[in-house]
Every structure is written in structure tokens, then in C-alpha cells.
């Protein structure tokens, strides 16, 4: 099954190798891995999606934690996190493309339906940008293919994940949030204990992957 880990790691040379080497050692295939800056100075946030047996999650997480460059690791399920991917798709849209002069308008229509954006328009091609769950991106690509559009290039970032609501990590809680008031006991008293699991599944009612806000 697919596991998604979100790791906060130090931003130093060789960190990616250490993480990748861990998965190689465990003989686990990385499906996707995204890295970028986080809210904290000198740390990156990674989202690692990997294919591993169901029981392996604890060990992968604990092994990631053993790396000295790791600040925090979270394993997130689909229902508890927003999982998104960014995709760029270049489609042939010139007079000589399969749909000829109609290409552009038809691609525009598809883009509207899928809430993709046109980010580049060239005489012979259109570039679409789409953000969403992997299934939606695959949906757009499939529709383009089935409608005989000529896909010239596809570039996908792989999945990024962020847990919904307040984070549950006691490590991050202890570190506090950068830019805000330092974490104090009084603040803590008013806040619910986010470490507790929600009492029922209803709590997650608005968290289906297809519901997401369009960014402007």
C-alpha cells in the first residue's frame, strides 16, 4: 500500500541522499519525493510517498527519525491531510495538430472544467498548469489522450501533503511556531488537545480529496 510521510529535515548538503539511502536500504520504492523550504529557517519539508507493506509504516517512520538530520516525521493518511500535486502539461495546439484550428478553444474548455490554468500559449502548443489530487491530474491527462490531443510533455511534482487542522506532533509543539508568540503554558490551557484523535469520523466530513479551494 502507499504510505505518505511528511518529514521536517535540516537544509544541508547530503540530506536528500540520507533520506533516499534509507529507503534503498529498506528495499522500499519511493513513488514520489518532494522537497522545499518550510516555515522554519534552515529546514526543509519533504513529502515522501512510498509503496510498502501495511505494517512497515512504523518502522519507516522510526528509521526516518533515527537520521540525525530529521527534526520531525509524520505519517499522514488521505483523510487527515490535504494531498496535492502540481502538474504542467504541454499539448499540441497548432493548425497542424489533430484538432486543427479548434484545438485551442477545446483545450480552454477542458481546462475550465478541470480548473487547470493556461500558463503559456505558443503558436503550436498550450501549456496547462494544474494543482490537485493525483487522481484529478490523471483524469485531465486521460481526457486529453482520449480526445486525441497530442500531449507533448508532462511534468509532475509528486505529492505534497499537509495535515489538516492543528499539527499533532509534540516535537513541533515544543519547537513553537516561527513568527508567532513563543509557545506558553497559558496559551496552551485554552487550546483543545489536538493530539487527541477526533471522536468520530464525522469530524472529517469536509475532508474529501475532491473538495479544495481554488487558489487565485
Amino acid at each position, binding site marked *: 500500500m502507499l504510505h505518505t510521510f511528511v518529514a521536517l529535515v535540516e537544509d544541508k*548538503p*547530503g540530506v536528500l541522499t540520507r533520506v533516499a*539511502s534509507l529507503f534503498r*536500504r529498506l528495499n522500499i520504492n519511493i513513488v514520489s519525493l518532494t522537497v522545499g523550504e518550510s516555515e522554519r529557517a534552515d529546514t526543509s519539508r519533504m513529502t515522501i510517498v512510498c509503496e510498502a507493506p501495511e505494517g512497515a509504516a*512504523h*518502522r519507516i517512520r522510526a528509521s526516518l527519525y533515527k537520521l*540525525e538530520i530529521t527534526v520531525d516525521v509524520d505519517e499522514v493518511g488521505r483523510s487527515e491531510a490535504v494531498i496535492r500535486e502540481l502538474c504542467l502539461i504541454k499539448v499540441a495546439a497548432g493548425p497542424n495538430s489533430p484538432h486543427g484550428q479548434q484545438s485551442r478553444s477545446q483545450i480552454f474548455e477542458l481546462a475550465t472544467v478541470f480548473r487547470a490554468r493556461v500558463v503559456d500559449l505558443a503558436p503550436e502548443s498550450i501549456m496547462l498548469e494544474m494543482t490537485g489530487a493525483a487522481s484529478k491530474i490523471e483524469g485531465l491527462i486521460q481526457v486529453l489522450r482520449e480526445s486525441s490531443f497530442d500531449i507533448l510533455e508532462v511534468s509532475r511534482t509528486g505529492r505534497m501533503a499537509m495535515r489538516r487542522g492543528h499539527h499533532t506532533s509534540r516535537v513541533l509543539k515544543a519547537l513553537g511556531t516561527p513568527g508567532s508568540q513563543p509557545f506558553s503554558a497559558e496559551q496552551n490551557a485554552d487550546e483543545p488537545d489536538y493530539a487527541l484523535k477526533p471522536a468520530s469520523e464525522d469530524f472529517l466530513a469536509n475532508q474529501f480529496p475532491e473538495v479544495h479551494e481554488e487558489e487565485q
Partner: protein
Amino acid sequence: MEPQTPAPTLTGAEILWAVLAGEGVTTVFGYPGGAILPIYDALRKFPIHHVLVRHEQGAAHMADGYARASGRVGVCMATSGPGATNLVTGLATAMLDSIPVVAITGQVSSKVLGSDAFQEVDITGITLPITKHNFLVTRAEDIAPAVRRAFQIARSGRPGPVLVDITKDAQQATAAFDFETAKPLPVRPHPMLRAESTSFQQAVDLILGARRPILLAGHGITQSGAEAEVLAFAEARQIPIATTLLGLGSIPAGHPLSLGMMGMHGESWVNTAIQQSDLLLAFGMRFDDRVTGNIASYAPKAKKIHIEIDPSEINKNVKVDVALIGDLKETLARLLPQLPKKMDASWLKEINASKGTAAVRDIINLPDNGHLYAAHVIHDIWREAQAAGREHDTVIVTDVGQHQMWEAQYFKHEAPRSLVTSGGLGTMGFALPAAIGAKSACPQKDVWVIAGDGGFQMTACELSTIVQEGLAINIAVINNGFLGMVRQWQETFYDKNYSASPILSPDFVKLAGAHGIEGATVSTRRDVTSTVTHARTSGKAFLINFHVEKEDAVYPMIAPGAALHEMVRRPDRDPLLETAEDE
């Protein structure tokens, strides 16, 4: 407050030694070379003794042996390129057995990094999977923080080796150095290391409900310094204790609750007791395959409680019912007050009754038939230590193979850190250099090398190091003309096809003599004790070449993939003994 004096400016090389001295390092094991020369040049200014090895692998094993015998961090050094790659086996050995070692390697100048410069190798890349962490340092001002962190990482949580690769220009450049801020960093607790109180309650309930509990004592007991707590725990509930290979010594072998070693070559009653147990208490051990045999049939009736500092070990090999993650000493201190005392010793009596004929079958209890068995040699080394009242002041350093298992069976370890052996990686050639490390750490102790004729030849060059350092190390070579464990497997599983297992050896006594070390050859049982006594009391290094029975095998034995209770017992009447008429 004292007036602020500006921090002195030192070279990178001087900063390294200053930080090492600050960490309490008194001895380092190493080998100089081009890329580490600035560091060696600065050595004379610092009160640290450098042991020149004959091969860098030896340096890593010495640092390892030093750490195992003393509990302090061992330090080894090598130059770039081949010097660094020669450390690899030693670092892997330390990694698999969780030994705190810091390795310092020289590296080519940062300006030519990555250009395949002379003696350049990507040692941080190479050692990535066999170190707990490693650093590449290219600036003088980064040396102190990196080395301090290296010591902290090596010691913290589950210990392990850390490598610091320092470029030559960083060694030569200068930086401000403040002795105060370069003080050792405290041991860092792991953020995940916190056992839940609900788990404690579950553990207590399981312990109170258990009728046939067994405590599995691992290396973590000594790592945590929890020997007294474990013993108090076992005594409070009358729980028999089985030990892993690296757990030997953590519990006195002579203690009534101590059963002996478990696993592939463990005693039959120990493994049988584990299989019949209804509760296994795994303390600082990791259910290695040599310990469990076939996982599917391992302790089928037993609930399992695992106290372990490394969360990634939980449920790795054996699924456990309760995991208490954390330092063993602290965890037991919380657990112990919750347990009422229990005095029922019926389970222990039952186990002792199951020993049956095991002792009678044992080779050391059979009459002398003129043949010399390795078991006799090891038994006599133990009796010598016992007779001299040096049981707590003897360190046995073994190599890997049959003699290692015989040592584990026949030397009764009473004290922690009295056995130094490569358990996880099984590194042949480990014994001689590791013994040099152990003797350097504990010069007042008797240090014995017990090695086979195969493994001894892998690192025999370090005999010269012993002489140069003037170390009184006793060496017992268990010489049977074979790579014994390989031969035993070939006998059992490969139809006696002794492919490449017979090994020719030099005359080890002459070899020792060539280094200036006295020696003797022993081939009869009656000469063992007197020679062992002579070696121990000689006050200098002494090598004994024991010509032992060629085709002897280690029993009991569990075939790979077999269950613990399916062990092959010692032969009822040793067939070898019956052929003793020729004597």
C-alpha cells in the same frame, strides 16, 4: 564574573585536538598520511597518546574494543582515500553492535573536492549506511561544532559510530576557538523516546499474570548501565534470565537465575524454556535471527514485552504485545516499584530439571582421552581467571567462528564488559586489534585474545603494535587447521564438501617470536593449565598456539530456519572420543 578574554586563534588541527581533549579522550588509534598530516603535526601540543596501528582496519577495531571495554567513546584516525576506506569494516562492526566510536579522517583540500584528486574518496558517501551520522568539514571554524556533535551523537540514545571527514585546508586554516563553548554536549534524548503510562500498566498486568516468564538480557543492559536494575527486577519476580551473545556478562553467570546463552548455539534448556515460556521480557535486545531461529515458531505461547531505546527495533523481527521505548535503566526504575515481590521458584526448578543429561554430555566433563578440545582451552582460561581471583578483571576478546561460540559457552562471564566480541557483523580479524583497544582502556585488567587460526591471520600484523605499545596481551590461537565454522556448516549442510575451508597457517609461535613476543605450542590437555598460568603471569604479551581437535563441532546447534526447540544436541557419546585409542 571573570573578565572576557578574546578567544584564542588556533589552527583547525589544533582545534580538533583541543575538542578531543575536552571530550576526555586520552588515547587515539590511527595511521598518518598526506591529507591528515596537519593534524598529526599538532598532536605534540596535546596530552593525548596516539597508538600507531599497522592497518587502518585495526584502528577502527581498536577504537571499538576500547569503547566496549571501557564504556567511553573510542577514537580512530586515518588519512583520506585508502586510509579512510580501510576503516569501513571496523565502522560497520561498531554500527551493528551499537558501539560509540568517533572516526576522524583527513580529506583532500576543499578546493579540489570532487575532482578525483590524489587519495580522494567520498568517504562520507561510502560510510553513510554504516555510521550513525557523518560530517564533511571544510572550514576550520566548523571543526569544533562538528566534533562535539559527533561525540554527542555517538553516545546518545542507541550508540553508534560517527565519522568526521576534515579537509586539509580546514586543518591548516585558523579560527577563533573558545574552550568554554567547546565543552562536551549533553546526551540528547530522542523525541520519540517516551513510554506511555498505559503501556506501563499493560506491562505490569502481563508480568503479574505470567507463570513462566523469561527475561532476555541483551547488550542494551550494559549500554544503559542497568545491570543492577535488571537483576533487582529478575530477583523481585524470580524470573530466569537468558542472555544474548552480547548480553553475556551483564548478568553474573553464576547467579541462580542466570540460565546462560540463548539462540543458535545456546544451551538446550535455555531455548526450550523460551519456547515454553508464557512471557518474554526482552531487555535491550533486538530479536536477531541468531537468537530467534524460525520466527514463525518462536516462543509461540509467549506474550512479549520489549524494552528498547531504538523505536525502529519494535516489531521489526518479532511482533510484541507491549513496547516500552526508552532507556532501560530509567524504564525499569519506573516499572520496578509497581511490581510486588514473588518468591515462587517452581518455574526455575522446572527449567533446571530439564537440563537432564546436558552436563554429562558436555565435553569438559568427559575424561581426558589425549585429545585437546577448544572447550578445554577456554574452560581452563576461565578457571585460571577464577583461581587467581581475576574473574572481574579479565577481558576476553574473541574473533568470530567456532571458538567464539565455545568461548560464550565455556567462559562464565561474571562482570559487564568482560567479553568483547563482534556479534552483529561477525567480523573475522576483530580480536587482536580490539584487544589492543581493550588493554589500552583497561591496562590493569588481564586481556585475552581468543582467535581461530583463520581470523588471527587476517589482522596478525597488529602483533607489532602490541610490541610497540608494550602491552601485556595474552593470545590464545585455537588452531584446528580449518575455517572451523565454515567446515562445520559444510559438514552439516554441504555433504562434507570442504571447499576452501582447510587453511594453512604459519608457525604462530615463530610468527610471534619474529615480533618479539614469547609463545608456546600446546597440543595436550594436561599442558593447558600450566601454559595459561605462565602466560597470564608473564607480565608481557604471550601467544599460545593450541593445536586442537581438527573436526570438532559446536553443539547444541539450531539449523538456519529451524525452530529453537529443534536443536541438535551434543552427541550422546562423542564419536571423536571413541577414536582416541591411537593416543
